[in-house]
């Protein structure tokens, strides 16, 4: 597991802040989303303000930050929404 990278999908304003639709970071040793987000902030400090208001999703499910990442998961970050 630890050898792999974690792909993080940055949507909406996060994409414009990171300049990337997908950021890759080292797979968090404790499989936790919190650790992954901390690592993302180190690479892209600009997202620090937005992250607390973002929801996390895996596939088509929103997951709590306590969710333990599984092999093959890609983390999707959903900033506050506002269509219409």
């Amino acid at each position, binding site marked *: 597991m630890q050898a792999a990278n974690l792909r993080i999908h940055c*949507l909406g304003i996060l994409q414009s802040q990171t300049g990337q639709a997908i950021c890759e970071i080292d797979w968090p040793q404790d499989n936790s989303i919190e650790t992954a987000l901390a690592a993302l902030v180190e690479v892209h400090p600009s997202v620090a303000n937005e992250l607390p208001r*973002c*929801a996390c999703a895996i596939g*088509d499910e*929103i997951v709590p930050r306590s969710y333990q990442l599984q092999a093959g998961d890609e983390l*999707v970050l959903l900033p*506050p929404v*506002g*269509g*219409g």
Partner: protein
Amino acid sequence: MTTLSNQPLDLDSLLAETEDDSAGALVVFSGTIRNHHDNKSVERLSYTAYEPIAKKAIAEIEQEVKDIFGVTQCRIIHRIGDLEIGDIAIHCVVRSAHRGEAFEAAKYAIDTTKSRVPIWKEEHYSDGTSVFREGTPLKAD
């Protein structure tokens, strides 16, 4: 049934989809791109979505609207991509026997879509700047 589209939205097809001889009331809400926001001149908008959850969330809202308000039909379609002034970003269509619940239901449909569907809009202004509009944080279930 289409809930997200990158093509111009067609109200007639949504009206045809929801035809219902038991429903005497039809309420449509449509959101169109307007030429100003907070006194700034808007040139165009880009809408993006996280499609796997956006499609599921819209389908859930349609069902929820029917369950809560007892209306016979509810359809919602949202456009994504680059939109110009006057373009339609969303249609919400509700049909029911009577008009009171049709208005309530259509209002709920658009309010809930704005606050629960992962769609974002970036406003591009005439001065060359652009801004992501402030939104509503999604909650984990």
